[in-house]
């Protein structure tokens, strides 16, 4: 199970980075979303996807699920959700003001 999840995470990372390197704003945002999914999946995989009892204090339990990565992922998902929505609004404003969604045309060093 861990191996499948790791491969899936790596596919998400590679597609994410491919999209991140594109010129269109929206594709870049899709890239960051994919990378964040990959990172979250990776976090879950790293603690081993164990089955068994819930992590409660009960006698006679040898295998139980590790609760910490799930708590970490939940936090990370909320954060990346917030940042992505902000990034979408920012991209829209950037597009309306600069009249372009092409990163190639958003270079330059005029700071007004």
């Amino acid at each position, binding site marked *: 199970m861990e191996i499948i999840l790791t491969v899936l995470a790596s596919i998400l990372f590679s597609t994410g980075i491919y999209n991140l390197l594109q010129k269109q704003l929206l594709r870049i945002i899709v890239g*960051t979303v994919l990378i964040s999914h990959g*990172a979250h999946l990776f*976090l879950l995989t790293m603690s081993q996807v164990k089955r068994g009892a819930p992590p409660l204090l009960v006698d006679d339990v040898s295998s139980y699920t590790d609760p910490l990565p799930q708590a*970490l992922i939940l936090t990370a998902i909320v954060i990346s959700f917030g940042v992505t929505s902000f990034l979408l609004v920012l991209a829209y404003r950037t597009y309306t003001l600069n009249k372009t969604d092409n990163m190639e045309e958003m270079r330059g060093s005029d700071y007004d």
Partner: protein
Amino acid sequence: MINLIFLPIVLPLLASVIAALLTKKIKITRLFSQITSVVFLIFVGGLAFYIFQNGSIVGQAGGWAAPYGISIVGDPLAILLVLTTNIIGTAAIFYAPRILEEKQERFYFYALYFLLIAGVSGAFMTGDLFNLFVFFEVLLMASYGLIVLGNGKAQLRESFKYVLFNLFSSMLFIVSVAYIYAITGTVNLAHLAERVETVEQQGVLTAVGMILFFVFAVKAAVFPLYYWLPNSYVVPNPVVSALFGALLTKVGIYSIIRVYTLIFVHETAITHSIFIWLAMFTMIFGVIGALSTHNVKLIVTYNIIPAVGFMLMGIGLYTPEAIAGSVYYLMHDMVIKGALFFLIGALVIAAGTKDLRQMSGVIQKYPLLGWVFFIASLILAGVPPFSGFIGKILLLEGGLRQEEFLLVIVALLSSLLILLSMMRIFVYGFWGELMDGLSNERKRIRQLTIPGVVLVGLAIFLGIGAEFVYPQIESISNMLYERTDYISSVLKE
């Protein structure tokens, strides 16, 4: 007493909510922000005094003992930086109403400011690696809000890149936390410091350590990852640039200091010698950038980068004196970068242009601004007896003891070039014929200069009063070098 350690994070968070609710009544918000930030400053000052007298205070969130719950660690280093943060923040709050347009203030400047302070204080004080990620995100969220304040064309363009870089490095942060959790089974910093020694595959740990360094190096603007910094720090309003330049990159450097003196200290021959090379290149490239432009604000922005090189140098040398130098330089740099951005903001308002070639003779009309800027430049370059000198001499002494002669030469040379880049502003901008179109708003310029004067005064005190300050810094650096104090205060064994 222990619960007081949470307040430097919780109070700004509460103030942020209140400021967001009050935001329509701008005068009340201003007054509220000024009063609360002065109160916070006094409170944090008292807390710092207590900690320096009686040792670290460690708070465990929810009362869960250390490796299970999240620890908030108020050790001398953390509280010193929180205090410096609050000093700069208070100066910024008094600077803001004069430099921001009323519309910008109304668009949640004060709410975002308090959120930024909460995030920065949290990042300094947390004792948990994942919690560090969360506080990084809190301060970055606030900085995203602040950087777009004003809604300019170039501003949005550069903000987008800034958000992207930070988002990508945050994702790498999650990945490295995942690796560390897989290898050691903990994310508590003190617990990690204990466990890294017992890990079987030390090589993997070093590799993960370098991924984590990559994350912090992006935030701290270390060569070759600094290229996002100049453009995105030069576009926002001067008060926002001052907050960013004084606080944000320093959080990255603080994280490097914390992690590489506490956790990854087993392979210093690999990790710390890489730092020395990176420090050298950071100094060279930063100072070349500062000499390459005529935009006054960009010159100061580029000067953030060599300072990062100096602090990284101390971590790379990894001796108690060199670490003391890094900590001293860190504190000094926060204060002086804040002051310089404040003064540059005043200069740009006074001259009406950012281009050095179009301004001259500003000192004839605004002598206070001119002379304070001159002293600030000397402090930045590390001319004795000011605070930059104390930090630099500790670092150079550490470098000579370790026989890193090339590093010492580069450091000395880059200090000289920093002085040159700042003197260019002074010679071309302040000296010479009185220019046309110089602003007549004497009262406003004076009010804009005062926060800078206060911070420059503090920097002078850090230099001349070194005899009073240095013993504290020395005990901090010994504590960092020995490690056991931090570990035992968190884990309470």
